[in-house]
């Protein structure tokens, strides 16, 4: 699959047919691994870097991770194409911006992505829509086992899987969920929810992970402890304790809004809808902000005849690289704002994508 085909694809993890999909947009699990007998990337020269790349690519091929794996050498594509991969969560921002040989392999449905030479030699991730932690773990653990048949990962009896950053050592697991929390934001209860999350040793980040702003009321919650607990323990805590708790906070805030401030709530939702339906130029920030309110309106049944999926998809499509891919040409900031407003109007009035 080429990058251009990719932009016309609908990521399977943006479907909204899963449990708690009104609040939990997606689940993600990633594992960090390093090839034994090599330095970590900070100390690897370009020859070693290439060798790690070759060994991993070879092992991934032999492991038959998926029938429909697309392999992309990140040095062989331009910045815009790398940006498309970032916007689709197939690679990280750091991976896009790094230098030296590095690559990504991903499945057709975009639920599996294997990053070679990111911060660690190999970072594998599985993404699913809604709350599907066990499914993510099942897939990623199988992939890990399959690749491990052909290559040795750096492992220590006391410290577990060894990673470039000691904050990932042990299981090398990062479990995260992308949550849509507009009501907590509106009722000013975000701080309290955040404090609770911090007490549970969680990290909270924006849409694109580390170092990004939480725009459109989208938050990424992830575990920080990777050593001293098993993968199953970490996942189970996430699935049974952490996410349900945050979801409950958000639901309660939504119900309170419905009960006590229904007119103000409807006003917010329909104003957002009105702006999105009629704006001729719009920035990413404003669009995300307004889409978030409409999405809440759909979840609460205040806006009908619109699917959550359409909105999930727009969160992705209005980003700069995607807009330019859709237009098949480079657009400056002003042109992007116009293209963004056009796309939103079309999609919200039910014009089919593609």
């Amino acid at each position, binding site marked *: 699959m080429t990058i251009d085909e990719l932009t016309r694809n609908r990521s399977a993890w943006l479907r909204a047919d899963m449990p708690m999909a009104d609040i939990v947009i997606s689940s993600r699990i990633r594992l960090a691994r390093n090839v034994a007998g090599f330095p970590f990337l*900070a100390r690897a020269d370009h020859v070693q870097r290439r060798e790690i790349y070759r060994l991993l690519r070879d092992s991934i091929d032999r492991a038959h991770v998926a029938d429909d794996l697309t392999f992309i050498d990140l040095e062989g594509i331009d910045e815009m194409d790398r940006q498309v991969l970032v916007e689709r969560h197939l690679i990280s921002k750091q991976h896009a911006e790094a230098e030296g040989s590095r690559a990504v392999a991903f499945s057709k449905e975009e639920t599996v992505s294997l990053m070679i030479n990111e911060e660690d030699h190999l970072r594998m991730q599985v993404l699913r829509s809604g709350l599907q932690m066990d499914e993510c773990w099942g897939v990623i653990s199988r992939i890990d086992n399959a690749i*491990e048949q052909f290559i040795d990962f750096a492992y220590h009896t006391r410290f577990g899987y060894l990673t470039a950053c000691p904050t990932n050592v*042990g299981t090398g697991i990062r479990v995260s969920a992308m949550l849509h929390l507009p009501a907590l934001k509106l009722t000013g209860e975000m701080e309290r929810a955040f404090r609770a999350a911090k007490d549970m040793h969680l990290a909270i980040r924006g849409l694109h992970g580390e170092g990004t702003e939480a725009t459109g009321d989208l938050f990424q919650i992830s575990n920080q402890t990777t*050593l001293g607990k098993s993968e199953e323990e970490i996942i189970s805590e996430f699935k049974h304790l952490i996410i349900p708790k945050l979801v409950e906070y958000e639901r309660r805030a939504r119900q309170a809004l419905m009960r006590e401030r229904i007119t103000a709530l409807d006003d917010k939702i329909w104003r957002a809808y009105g702006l999105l339906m009629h704006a001729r130029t719009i920035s990413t920030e404003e669009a995300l902000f307004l889409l978030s309110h409409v999405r809440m309106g759909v979840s609460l049944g205040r806006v009908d005849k619109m699917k959550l999926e359409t909105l999930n998809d727009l969160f992705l499509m209005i980003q700069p690289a995607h807009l330019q891919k859709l237009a098949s040409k480079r657009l400056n900031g002003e042109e992007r704002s116009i293209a963004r407003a056009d796309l939103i109007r079309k999609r919200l009035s039910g014009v089919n994508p593609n």
Partner: protein
Amino acid sequence: MVCHRCKKREATVHLTEIIHGEKCEKHLCEQCAAEDGIALKQPQLNELLANFVKSQTSAAEIANITCQACGMTFAEFRSGGLLGCPYDYDAFDKALTPLIKRAHENGAQHVGKVPQRAGIAQERQHELMRARRELAAAVEREDYELAAKLRDQIKNLEKA
């Protein structure tokens, strides 16, 4: 300012208390403050200095710990945040373990997944890394005889 209590000595202790919501300022000399039960911490200067020097030397020693496999020092790790190679976990063990515990809710022992295939021994991983590093250097120097030897060594280590 004269001490509020004895009204003789110079006041050097200045306190602000809130009593029943009223702000109340107190200015006392050291003696009256002590009699008032206000403890003044007066650490001995030489004791402070000794501790300072001690912590500095041990910090310097820790900073200089160097990994034999990749050449990274602990100071370099502290400034960059990323380790140089898997062997650093042993080389920096003493300095790193407290950091690891702090980052992982006191966890210091892996209890999760174990590689299915009994991975090659840590010792051999270390040796492999050394051989690969020497190979890169040999190629750089265009010492192809040594490079060929090292390649064989690496192959054997990988097979073992």
